[in-house]
């Protein structure tokens, strides 16, 4: 893996472990998807290598769409490891709760714009949560964790992506989930255009009705 001077585990997530390391005089993140003992080896290897190969490609695509992501330095498919730029920033998850209302709404609109840019460019993030968004000191937002993403311009994929954003807001920021999601949709519509955004929003409603036990479905019948 070349010159890794120091290596500290900074996050042991469900999907991967993140290490902060010194690599060729640079602060980097080493992201390794370790084998998951619970699933069969052949399935596990397939999933880990697919996601490791796929993530950098999507991050690159995101950049093309005008969405900031950490720069990729190296990819080791064999041991499911990616070396990427370390972003000095704070998770949006930690910021959202302590912000004044106005700033919070502006941030949500900004997030919506970023999602709009991704979707317009045919990139689906696949795991939109406020933990996967980092804000640096200048207020620039970076999206990370594209491992579950895909290239798609389908309405269904876009709808699920936004549905996940909504779900994340509801479970983690329930106090202001609604105003936040409305902000996200405003930003999203501004980038994607009212017409297209409307179709996606209608799709979100449909996706949620598909799930079990949603009150709206009964009202509709």
């Amino acid at each position, binding site marked *: 893996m070349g010159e890794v001077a120091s290596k500290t585990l900074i996050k042991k*997530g*469900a*999907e991967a472990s993140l290490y902060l390391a010194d690599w060729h005089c640079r602060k980097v993140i080493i992201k390794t998807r370790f084998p998951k003992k619970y*699933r069969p080896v052949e399935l596990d290897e397939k999933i880990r290598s697919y996601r490791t190969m796929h993530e950098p490609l999507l991050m690159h695509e995101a950049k093309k769409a005008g969405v900031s992501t950490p720069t990729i330095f190296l990819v080791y498919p064999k041991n499911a490891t990616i070396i990427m730029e370390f972003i000095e920033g704070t998770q949006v998850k930690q910021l959202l709760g302590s912000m004044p209302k106005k700033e919070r709404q502006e941030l949500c609109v900004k997030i919506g714009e970023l999602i709009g840019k991704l979707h317009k460019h045919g990139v689906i993030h696949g795991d*939109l949560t406020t*933990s996967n968004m980092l804000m640096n000191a200048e207020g620039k937002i970076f999206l990370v964790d594209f491992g*579950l993403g895909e290239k798609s311009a389908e309405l269904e994929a876009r709808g699920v992506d936004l549905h996940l954003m909504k779900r994340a807001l509801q479970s983690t920021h*329930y106090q202001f989930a609604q105003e936040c999601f409305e902000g996200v949709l405003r930003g999203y519509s501004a980038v994607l255009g009212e017409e297209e955004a409307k179709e996606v929003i209608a799709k979100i409603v449909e996706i949620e009705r598909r*799930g*079990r036990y949603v009150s709206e479905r009964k009202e509709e019948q």
Partner: protein
Amino acid sequence: MKDSSEAYCLGIESTADDFGVGIVTLNGKILANASSDYVPEEGGIHPREAARHHAEVADTVLQEALTKAGIKPRDLTLIAFSQGPGLGPCLRTGATVARALAAYLNLPLVGVNHSIAHIEIGKLTTGAADPVTLYVSGGNTIVSAFDSGRYRVFGETLDIALGNCLDVFAREAGLKHKKGMPLGAALEKLAANGKQLIPMPYVVKGMDLSLSGLLTAATTLLRKGECKLEDLCYSLQEHAFSMVTEVTERALAHTEKREVLLTGGVAANKRLQSMLSTIAEEHGARFHVVPREFATDNGAMIAWTGVLAYKHGIVTPVEESFVKLRWRLDKVDVPWVK
């Protein structure tokens, strides 16, 4: 109020194919858990037929529970019933029995959310205090955890439930639902003899998952008849269970809780238990699984959740006791959880 070890709550469960009556004391001792399940001649649950079954067995199951608990109806303090979510005709049958009992005995009535009851009985029987819960059954696939007054949903199925996925496949494969041997158990037995992992769709989206594509792929392979049934059962289980385990692990990492609880009908599956216990261990969390008797739908869980609500001043006036077919667990305040 009487001493809580001598005060009893009777709970009625009837959301789907089981009609159950449980009796617990107000301090959480389970005295009886009687039930009768409706077994369809073929195919899945026919809601009206299941409701007819429930109405027919109601008095026998009630009597059985009272006898087992060694108490008389006059000894009861409280009646709880499953108010939703579930199948309309089945829910209404249980609610009608509950209202009649409460009116006749002049007792308070408490409507209970069925999904929350699965979590609460898991906590009561395993000692889990604040877990990330994977609730998997024929109608539900939900990853939830408590935060600020409610159980929050972190992930769930985008289409069909895990139990439903397994049951439909098992029926397609000609397996039969027998008394005491649910379809899932028959499938699990076959899967244990599977050796070859056949590639199938694996669809995780954030903390949500989708099982309909997996079911279609598995049934298509089954109809082609080129794979061994054991291998198909094995592969279906491995893919589906890996998906729910992955999203549970995500919720566990996200919430940083120290316990994992597996509950609902599919919790009886040993392979699923072992997968979840692996991730719990990896994150330094304790793994709990609800005992088999309380994994499937049961009256005791309704009675116990009724007790928890009642102790926090929650009662359901008869005029508000209508059933709620699509009552989500994240819509319910749970003041008894701290």
